[in-house]
């Protein structure tokens, strides 16, 4: 049997492989399930020992996530008119009243603007650069590509202090633009390298055909190359978004009042009125959703090899 021969695995092998995959999935899913579950617990259930697997669901965590509350005296509470909404009721049950909205919504929007903005920019610039590197004779091409790659050879946070000082000088500290530029800069090397690989795979003949068919180089690029690079662009965008969305260290360092993203904000929820684990878990759960939705939306591009079968070899 040669090293390259492919044989159909036996039923036993399939069973073992299947079991291992399911086991691994369960182990990796467990923290996630726990976070989602904790979001629907009451603060008492969240910290009870032994941990509660079965519990009565409550939306208190989500209410606490989106509100700030003040404790008031029992007499004053009794004097208030009855609560108008279900979430006011939940808060009143804890002898508190809603003082106002929390900043979670605002922080979440910051994450959306900075995450998607930097992803768009990194993928946009990355696609153009990758196309140029793939198709044109660029002077010092290999050195430039290596330089771009080398920007990722140490953890970005290693240059935190120079960046902190630069941002302060340039007035970029705690701005959306500053964070978008920073995440774009970190992601662009990944984007260029990934996309160059995808574009290299697209035969030049398609563009040459388009050039002869009467189109300019740029028109050939967006009418013929871009649609075929969709798979690569989608997967690159997912990688870039995941990084920008989850980034914590720079966000802590460079943002505070204005452009703070959700990751540094979520832990601060803990401090509001005791250890409010359900609110933290609720914040984390909601924070997971956009990346999940984005990945699911782009999944068909990831799976569909659109050039499959079109090329005669």
């Amino acid at each position, binding site marked *: 049997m040669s090293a390259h021969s492919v044989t159909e695995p036996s039923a036993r092998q399939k069973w073992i492989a299947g079991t291992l995959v399911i086991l691994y999935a369960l182990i990796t899913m467990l923290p996630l399930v726990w976070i989602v579950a904790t979001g629907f617990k009451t603060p008492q259930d969240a910290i009870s020992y032994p941990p509660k697997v079965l519990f009565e669901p409550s939306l208190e965590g989500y209410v606490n996530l989106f509100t700030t509350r003040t404790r008031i005296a029992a007499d004053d509470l009794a004097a208030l008119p009855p609560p108008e909404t279900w979430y006011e009721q939940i808060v009143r049950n804890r002898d508190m009243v809603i003082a106002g909205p929390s900043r979670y919504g605002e922080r979440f929007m910051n994450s959306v603007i900075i995450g998607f903005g930097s992803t768009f920019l990194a993928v946009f610039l990355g696609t153009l650069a990758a196309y140029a590197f793939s198709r044109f004779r660029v002077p010092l091409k290999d050195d430039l590509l290596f330089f771009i790659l080398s920007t990722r050879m140490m953890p970005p946070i290693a240059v935190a202090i120079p960046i902190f000082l630069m941002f302060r000088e340039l007035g970029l500290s705690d701005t959306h633009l500053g964070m978008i530029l920073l995440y774009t800069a970190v992601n662009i090397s990944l984007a260029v390298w990934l996309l160059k690989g995808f574009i290299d795979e697209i035969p030049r*003949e398609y563009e040459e055909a388009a050039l002869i*068919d*009467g189109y300019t180089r740029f028109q050939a690029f967006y009418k013929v190359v871009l649609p*075929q690079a969709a798979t690569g662009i989608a997967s690159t965008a997912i990688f870039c978004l995941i990084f920008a969305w989850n980034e914590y260290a720079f966000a802590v360092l460079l943002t505070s009042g204005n452009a703070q993203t959700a990751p540094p904000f979520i832990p601060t929820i803990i401090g509001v009125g005791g250890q409010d684990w359900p609110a933290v878990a609720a914040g984390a759960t909601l924070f997971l959703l956009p990346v999940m939705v984005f990945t699911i939306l782009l999944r068909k591009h990831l799976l569909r090899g659109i*050039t499959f079968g*079109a090329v005669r070899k």
Partner: protein
Amino acid sequence: MAEVRLTNVTKRFGRTTALDAVDLTVPDGAFVVLLGPTGAGKTTTLRLIAGLERPDAGTITVGGRDVSSETPAQRDVAMVFQQYSLYPHMSVRDNLAFPLRSPILRTPEDMIAAKVGQVAETLRIAHKLDNKATELSGGEMQRVSIGRALVRDPAIYLMDEPLSSLDAKLRSELRIELKRIHASLGATLLYVTHDQTEAMTMASHVGVLDEGRLVQVGTPREIYENPVSVTVAARLGLPRINTLPAGLFGTAPANAATIGLRPEHIAEGEGREASVVRVEHLGDQTRLHLRLDGHDIITLTDVHTPLRGGETIAIAPRAPLYFDADGRRIA
């Protein structure tokens, strides 16, 4: 349609010279076939005319206009590629309409529909127009690819082995189709192939390329009957021309190193005795594999021949071709 003229065109890729001072004229309305082995510079010639490559020396004119500084789009040429022919993300209809929708042509949609329908009819792909380009067989893909050139009315059609990947039946059908299109449109074609049947049946002129040099241009008959060298002689004719030491059959012209014998140059029943190695009955023709003084000779004979392997037959040259030591034709 227009005349295309290459003057003294040279193209190098690094250290290799792909084309070496080529002069070639494709007359208006001609069907010129470029013939030659792989790496002879056939495809490079097409790419230079199309503007996908720039020559290192020489000029290219289309309809008398120097196109050196023009982009491929400005040159008004259509090209059929050997492979990677269709835009995979588009339907067959959109593939065919693509050149007509270009900023250079900007054809109204109703005219596009009419033209696409007409070409699809000609190439018998009308029932596939709404398919995705990826949902076609190899033959259909190549017909769509040819169709994408035919929707236009360019100065010249450039075709790079468009039939090489098709099966024999489709190839012979499309060969007739292309010839018909050429005749009815009065189109100018420059067609690259290494298939001599395509060259012989379709071409009004054949150009033979060898190692970047255009060694001979002429009608298919001229090239076949009057080749300038051994390599040209070997490009046309099936079975291939037999090349043997000049003196094998007695006297030969001075300086002759090689005698070239096509089947019709071999008279049977006279001359030297050769042993029959094998008789191949191909149906419409019968090939004799002979051996004479250690040299293999292949010729044709009567399809009803009684000859069998192991027997002998006398053969003699009749109006053969002679070549010198460098392969040049001398008689």
